């Protein structure tokens, strides 16, 4: 897989994941202005700028899972939120099937890229039952006739492996893993083509983490979803991704097929990352070449 920017919109490339390109991130830059003071703003003093994403090109193919790894704060979440069309990028575009995603007037278009969030506790409205959360979007997007909303909600809940009675419960009566399932059901309700999962398992216990990973793998297979999977857990990423992009300080430093990246890392940072991964039973890996680097 090439790390080079795709050439022009709508161009079809084939990679390890196979299939046409569904989501393309081109030259994406996302800066945040620091809070700054009101007075400073009045005087036009430039507030501090955080360069969260600083020029990223990525391509996601149909049916493929792209893993995005990198240390904490390197801009993974920002990139994925941009990719889901939630932020207006400072510059660059995100295209879905060749069409710019952001500012798309068509709500049908925007629903095709959906997101699962990291924190299972804050990503559900605490005052809406699961049924309300799901039927709200179904009704609003007129995905099914009104009369069938309830049936569809039942199907979705079933799909993510929750019991039917969960419909009338508030999020707080669910465990973290169950909440994350609700989050996935919500994303799936919109029948998306692309699922962006921003560290969906990092807040979960290992055993629960396994069930969610399995669920995502199954969904991908049965629904043919394309997925951008963000994580800092190398093992998890290896388990789920076809391709991997390694991010460092707002830019993608390495990209390639999963086994390739794991076995023949090119970039120093990737090597450091892999060397740091603890392994069960494995003797501690030898110190990487970059050892001794100051820790920021």
């Amino acid at each position, binding site marked *: 897989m090439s790390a080079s920017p795709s050439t022009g919109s709508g161009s079809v490339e084939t990679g390890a994941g196979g299939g046409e390109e569904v989501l393309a991130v081109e030259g994406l830059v996302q800066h945040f202005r620091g809070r700054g003071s009101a007075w400073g703003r009045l005087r036009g003093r430039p507030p501090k700028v955080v360069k969260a994403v600083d020029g990223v090109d990525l391509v996601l193919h149909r049916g493929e899972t792209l893993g995005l790894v990198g*240390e*904490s704060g390197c801009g993974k979440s920002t990139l994925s939120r941009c990719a889901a069309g939630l932020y207006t990028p400072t510059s660059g575009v995100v295209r879905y099937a060749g069409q710019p995603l952001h500012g798309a007037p068509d709500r049908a278009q925007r629903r095709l890229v959906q997101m699962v969030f990291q924190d299972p506790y804050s990503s559900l409205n605490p005052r809406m039952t699961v049924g309300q959360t799901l039927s709200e979007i179904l009704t609003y997007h007129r995905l099914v006739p009104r009369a069938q909303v309830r049936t569809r909600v039942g199907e979705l809940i079933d799909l993510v492996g929750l019991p039917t009675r969960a419909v009338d419960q508030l999020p707080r009566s669910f*465990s973290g893993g169950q909440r994350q399932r609700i989050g996935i059901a919500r994303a799936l309700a919109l029948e998306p083509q692309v699922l962006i999962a921003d560290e969906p398992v990092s807040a979960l*216990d*290992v*055993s*629960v*983490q*396994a*069930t969610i*990973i*399995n669920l995502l*793998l199954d969904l991908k297979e049965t629904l043919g979803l394309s997925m951008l999977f963000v994580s*800092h*857990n*190398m*093992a*998890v990423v*290896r*388990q789920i991704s*076809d391709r991997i992009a390694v991010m460092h300080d707002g830019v993608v430093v390495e990209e390639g097929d*999963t*086994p390739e990246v*794991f076995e023949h890392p090119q970039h120093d940072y990737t090597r*450091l*990352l*892999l*060397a*740091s*991964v*603890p*392994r*069960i*039973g*494995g003797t*501690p890996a030898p*110190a*990487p070449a970059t*050892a*001794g*680097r*100051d*820790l*920021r």
Partner: protein
Amino acid sequence: MSTLVDGPVREPRSAPAVGTPVLELHDVDVEIPLPSGRLHAVRGVSLTAYAGQALGLVGESGSGKSLTLRAAMDLLPSPAVITGGSVVVAGTDVTGMRPAQRREHISSTMAMIFQDALTALNPTMRIGDQVAEVPRQRLGMSRTEARARALDLLAQVGIRDPEQRYRAFPHELSGGMRQRVCIAIALSAEPGLILADEPTTALDVTIQKQVLDVLGRLRRDDGVGLVLVTHDLAVVSSTCSELDVMYGGRVVEEGATEVLLSAPRHPYTAALLRSVPDPDAPVHRLLTIPGAPPDLLQPIGGCAFAPRCPAVVDRCRTERPPLMPLSAGHTSACWRAHEPQEWPGQVGEAAVEGVHG
């Protein structure tokens, strides 16, 4: 990852000889009175931590790991209380001591570090002062002595430019540095044992490694014992020689890490092991553990894991299995510990099926 800046190697004042028990828990019970009833969070836990040895403590979220450590440190969050058993620190039973005396005894023998270093540091105090606080307040050093000691400690945990960092506030440091400051604080009382409650969960892998390396070095060079709580088996595997697995407030399996991880003799340990993805060997599907952890508000008749156990037999539901020795230093609380090969094939069978992709 850091190379340790060479400071003067110090012999910890109170460090017992390697191999002597520093902390012994005997049948400790911790209960939390809640409006909805008494939550029996720790149920008769016994464990021993030796000087110079790293003991791992793993288990599902909510299995009572943190409360066990905090019970040992006499730092239970209110309203939790120890309701049974005894805590022996450096050979002395502290359960009957007067609070001030107990506090003094415990904190001069053991120290504790927490998961989130940012919240574990006082945000309004300079980090140097936080490290110097124990030498100054408790060890009776003068201001300059304490300062020198703090600088020394900061250097020991691999903080570059300690002179300059001395005056920094916690929020001005990176996560890994903060965690190392915490370790420096823990070391400032010259403990024989460090209790670490998920010290690396909040860090990413590269920084996690640096922190674990510092802890490992302390153990090797200074003979400081370590109790490491985590739910990451991989971390345990590369850090600890001994391992205790907890489930539902009890220790369910105990033994050498290597043995436990290669040949688990408790179904829970086995299941846990199989649900961890291996960075080097992706599988088609991970094993999961169906069902939910036990409700600790309720009494549990038999084995706490029984409702979720693939190898469950009738006896498991009615009679609680005690920790039973299997081989030297390896015990398991399972009625069927002796016949792992007899456990029915679980869904996890699929796990070894083949490399995916």
